Every structure is written in structure tokens, then in C-alpha cells.
């Protein structure tokens, strides 16, 4: 038996012969905030639904606080869940929605009212108890949904893309709010999202998933800066690919077109074998002050406020450089021939896809 507060051991789910989740192993510590990140159909929601009890695994075990809950009914797990569509009961007021779980548990009305008031304060909507869900904005409805999930003092909080239906500004606000409340209550949380920015900003650890498999598990800094697979590198953040051939694995040199580039991350391929060199746009600079240099012609310059995105057509393909904006920045012009440079520690090589 493993030691996580929530632990998934070899969890697998098939739908009519199609594997949705394959051999999922994860231990989540008490109070930890873990995000499942991946594109649609990667199995993240299915995994969450198995934890919630809405789906049953084809094989494997799910333990919660040391108890095997693999086949326990959803209403016996004491898990709070927040849905993308809010799923507030339209026929009930905000207070009744929040108190629903307590009513079902037959808590006395004084205790219930006290808990509802406490949660309304927690979500900063103290005067909305008598409102109906349709009278609230999307962001407010989702706060109520969060309060409703927390009212039953769940052992585990599950959030299934809770911010997807909201507009950008509200999303940012609520993201901060969710993290604040999670820290305040120190509640173990699983958060499903396809938005890498959300996962990076919120999580203690991220599980990156693709095609039903776990690609990488780690803290946001590690997942972003040291992606374990090409998929993770491409899915989390932006990435530039430079196709080349290994020159000398020991020194980490790779020929890309007519340039020779070096990486300090190590190369798991022999001399002459094709590799893909990857580098994040924010690591690239215009100029020749770093060791690795690639020449090209500026194809576009987009001013995005804090950053300026420059796309350069090089002999080994299009690369994107994100330059931090500053007043003295000299912007290249479209059509200029420029040198793009980056340090050896900023890039890493992976065997080229066949």
C-alpha cells in the first residue's frame, strides 16, 4: 500500500475496448494541490470522475485516507466536486444550494445556517444567500458551487475545468480565489484543466496527460523548464523546434543547417543521428552575444505589451523569439536579416520523431 492521502494504483479505464486511462499511478499528499493537465480526450476528466465515483475503473485501486474507495458510491465518498457548468440547483436559493449537502446529511438547521453564513463569507458573497442562481454572474455562480462543495467538509475537493466557462478577467480573479481558499482550508485538491497557464499558476504538482497516459508529474517549474517528453515540451508553454544531426554527443554539439549549436542537457543519440533541439521563445534573443546562433529573416513583429513576439524565418524553419519589452528596446523590422542567439543551457535535444 502506498502512503498518499489519495492514491491511485494502476488505475485503468476502458470504454468498449477503447483505453481512456492507462495505468495511472499517483500519490497525493494531504493539503496538496494537483492539476491534471492535457488536451481534450487525454483522460484527465475520466480519471477525476473515477476518483469522484461517477465512473468505475476497469482495473486498479483508488484509496482515500487509507480506505479502498474504488467501488464506493459517489454519495459515500465525502468528496466535494465543482463542475464546469456550475451545476447549481436552479430551484434553490444560494443558501439552499450551499446547505444542500448538510440538509441531506440531516444536520440541524442552526448548524446548517451557521455553516452557510461562514461559507458565504469565505467566498465574499455574504449578502447573496437569498438570491437564486440565475440572478448571479458566472463567476459568482462558480463561487457558490465551490462553497456548496466545501460545505460538507469534504476530505477531497475535485474541480473539473471550473473556469472554462468564464471570461478572462473573472478567470484570473477566481483562480487566485480558489488557491486562497484551498490554502486557507488546507484541503487536498485535484484540478482538471486544459489551460497550462492555470495549471502552472495554481498547482503544487502537475500531471501532464496525453492519450490516457501520464506524460510527466512534477512541480510547475520542473514541468515547464525540464519537460520529460516532446509532448510535455510542446503542450506546456511555447516551444521552438530546430531539426539537426548529432555531431558529438559528449560535447553536446548538434549541426542545424549550417550552424553548430551546443546543449548542456546531454544527448541520448549517436553521432549523425537526427535530433530535435528545443528552446523556449523567451530564451531567444536578437543579437550575437550568446554561443548558439542562427541566422534568419524577420517575418513578423508583434507587440503584445509586456513582450514583443518576433518570428524569424531561419534555414531550419520558423522560430519565435519573445523579447521582454523595455523602452530602449530596438525592434527589428520585417525583412531584416538578424541573428537569433541563445545559451547552451537553455536548449535540450530529443531524438527526432520518425
Amino acid at each position, binding site marked *: 500500500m502506498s502512503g498518499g492521502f489519495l492514491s491511485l494504483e494502476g488505475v485503468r479505464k476502458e470504454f468498449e475496448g477503447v483505453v481512456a486511462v492507462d495505468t495511472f499511478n499517483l500519490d497525493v499528499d494531504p493539503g496538496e494541490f494537483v492539476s491534471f493537465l492535457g488536451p481534450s480526450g487525454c483522460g484527465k476528466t475520466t480519471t477525476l470522475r473515477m476518483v*469522484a*465515483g*461517477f465512473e468505475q475503473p476497469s482495473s486498479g485501486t483508488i484509496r482515500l485516507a487509507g480506505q479502498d474507495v474504488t467501488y464506493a*458510491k*459517489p*454519495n*459515500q*465518498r*465525502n*468528496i*466535494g*466536486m465543482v*463542475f464546469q*457548468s*456550475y*451545476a*447549481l*440547483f*436552479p*430551484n434553490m436559493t444560494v443558501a439552499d444550494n450551499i446547505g*444542500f*449537502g448538510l440538509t*441531506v*446529511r440531516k444536520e440541524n438547521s442552526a448548524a446548517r445556517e451557521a455553516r452557510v453564513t461562514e461559507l458565504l463569507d469565505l467566498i465574499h458573497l455574504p449578502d447573496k444567500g437569498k438570491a*437564486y442562481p*440565475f440572478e448571479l454572474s458566472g463567476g459568482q455562480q462558480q463561487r457558490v*458551487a465551490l462553497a*456548496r*462543495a466545501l460545505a*460538507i467538509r469534504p476530505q477531497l475537493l*475535485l474541480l473539473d475545468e471550473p473556469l472554462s466557462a468564464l471570461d478572462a478577467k473573472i478567470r484570473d480573479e477566481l483562480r487566485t480565489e480558489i488557491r486562497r481558499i484551498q490554502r486557507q482550508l488546507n484541503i487536498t485538491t485535484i484540478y482538471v484543466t486544459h489551460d497550462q497557464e492555470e495549471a502552472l499558476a495554481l498547482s503544487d504538482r502537475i500531471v501532464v496527460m496525453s492519450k490516457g497516459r501520464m506524460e510527466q508529474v512534477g512541480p510547475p517549474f520542473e514541468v515547464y523548464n525540464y519537460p520529460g517528453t516532446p509532448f510535455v515540451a510542446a503542450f506546456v508553454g511555447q516551444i521552438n523546434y530546430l531539426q539537426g544531426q548529432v555531431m558529438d554527443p559528449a560535447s553536446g554539439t548538434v549541426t542545424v543547417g549550417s550552424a553548430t549549436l551546443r546543449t548542456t542537457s546531454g544527448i541520448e543519440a549517436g553521432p549523425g543521428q537526427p535530433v530535435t533541439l528545443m528552446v523556449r521563445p523567451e530564451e531567444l534573443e536578437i543579437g550575437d552575444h550568446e554561443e548558439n546562433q542562427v541566422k534568419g529573416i524577420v517575418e513578423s513583429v508583434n507587440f503584445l505589451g509586456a513582450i514583443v513576439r518576433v518570428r524569424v524565418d531561419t534555414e531550419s524553419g520558423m522560430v519565435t523569439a519573445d523579447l521582454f519589452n523595455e523602452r530602449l528596446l530596438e525592434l527589428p523590422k520585417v525583412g531584416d536579416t538578424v541573428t537569433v542567439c541563445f545559451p547552451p543551457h537553455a536548449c535540450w535535444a530529443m531524438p527526432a520523431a520518425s
Partner: protein
Amino acid sequence: MAALTISTTPSSVATETPAAGQPVKRNRFWAWLFIALGAAYFLLPLVATGYWSLRAEKDKLGFEAYRRLFDDSNFFPAFTQSLVNAVAAIALSLAIIVPTAYWVTLRVPRLRPVVEFITLLPFVIPPVILVFGLIRLYSRPPLLLTSTYGKSRVVLICAYAALSFPYMYRSVDNGLRAMDVRSLTEAAQSLGASWITILRRVIFPNLRVALLSGALLTFAIVIGELTVALFLAQRTFGPYMAELTRSKVYEPSAMAIVAFALTWSALGMIALITRPRSRQ
């Protein structure tokens, strides 16, 4: 529509306003005309019936037909019996259709066309065939259910519930489609609710409008139903009306008006009772 188009280009307002004004008026005229024609189509027979019901006394308009009708000792028992039958049939139909439609929506959406077909059968099978089928099945042991008036009445209510399926299923299904059944169910489940609690506290209250319309249609069918009631030898409102039409001149018209008023007030009562606590 016209206002929207104009507002996007301010410069065109001056030139387009007078031209746009004409069609609006004309549209309104036609709309009113059709409303008037529609209203006349429904109201004229009613007015004519009402007028006829007031002519029971020679050369004078009055309520004589109504007086005779209410003096008839069979009128209220027949109506009350139909009323009770209707309410029972609605309750039975709801108890069968809501859980079925809910389960189909949630768990086996692939079966929806099959269930839809089954609920449409009362449209395909004429009531006279239905009632003969029922009598054949329930008139001999082991399912002898037509031996007494009371037992036959139970069969009648069950038959009415079946007759209401096409309306009730469609109303409930539409209501379920209009809400996010799966998320609401799962939210309630994760909060610890059982299936019964979910149905009672989440699904039924949110289906109120749909249930009401299904109930109204069932009510309208059952209250004056003749065929099934006649063959099961029930003294309900349908057979009573048929009998009256054969033997009297002015009373049937008076009864039609009374039945109309009573039915609508009953429906109004249902609407009032099931009215949401707050505006939704």
C-alpha cells in the same frame, strides 16, 4: 429587426426610417388580422354554444338550462368522478414517466427512440382496441380486475395513464433536455444525496413547468373521455355528456359551458398551486 439594421449605420437612418415605417404597420395589421381570425375560430362556437344554452325558455334569454342541469343528481357525481380519475391518472403517469425519462436521459440515451416509440403507441392504438384488450386481459383469472365497479375504475385510471404517455413523456423529456441533468445529478450525488432525494429535491422541482403542461394535457383528455369509460361501464363525465346529448336540447350546451369553465378553473388551480415561490 428593422431598428437593429438601421442603428448599425447612423448615416442611413434618415433615408431608411420612412421606408422602414410602412412595412412595420402593414405587418402589424396582418398579425392582428390572423389573431382575430384565430380567436374567432375558437371563440365563435363557444359563443354560439353559450347563446344556445341561454334559450331554454321561449322568447327569453335565461339560465333555465343551467338550473335544470344542476338539478340533475347525476351531474356532479359524474364530474367529480372524472376529476378524481384525472388526478389519479396524472399521478400514476408522472410516477412512471419521470423516473423512466430521467433514467433514459442519464444512463441509456441510446434507448430514447425506443422509449419514445413505446410512449407513442396510444396514438397508434385506438381507444376502442385498447379497452377491448384490457377487458380481455383483466376479465378472467388470474387477473380478474373487472369484477366490481371499483376494480374497473382502477383499470380505467391505468388506461388513462397509458393514454397520457405521449404527452407526458414529451413534456418531461423536453424539460429534462432543458437542464443539465447529468451535472445536477452528479453534484447532488457528490453532496451525499440518494436517487430518491435527487428525484424529489432536484429533478421534480426543476421539471415543474414541463410536468404542468403534461398534466394539463392529460387532464384535458381524461375529463371528457368516452370510449374507454363506456366499455368499462363507468359513470364518468364522458358517458354522462353523451347520454345528455341524446335526450336533451339545451342542457348539453349549458353543460359544455360549465364543463369548459370547471376544467379551466381546475387547470388554473394546478397552475396556482405549482407556481414557483420566486420568479424564474
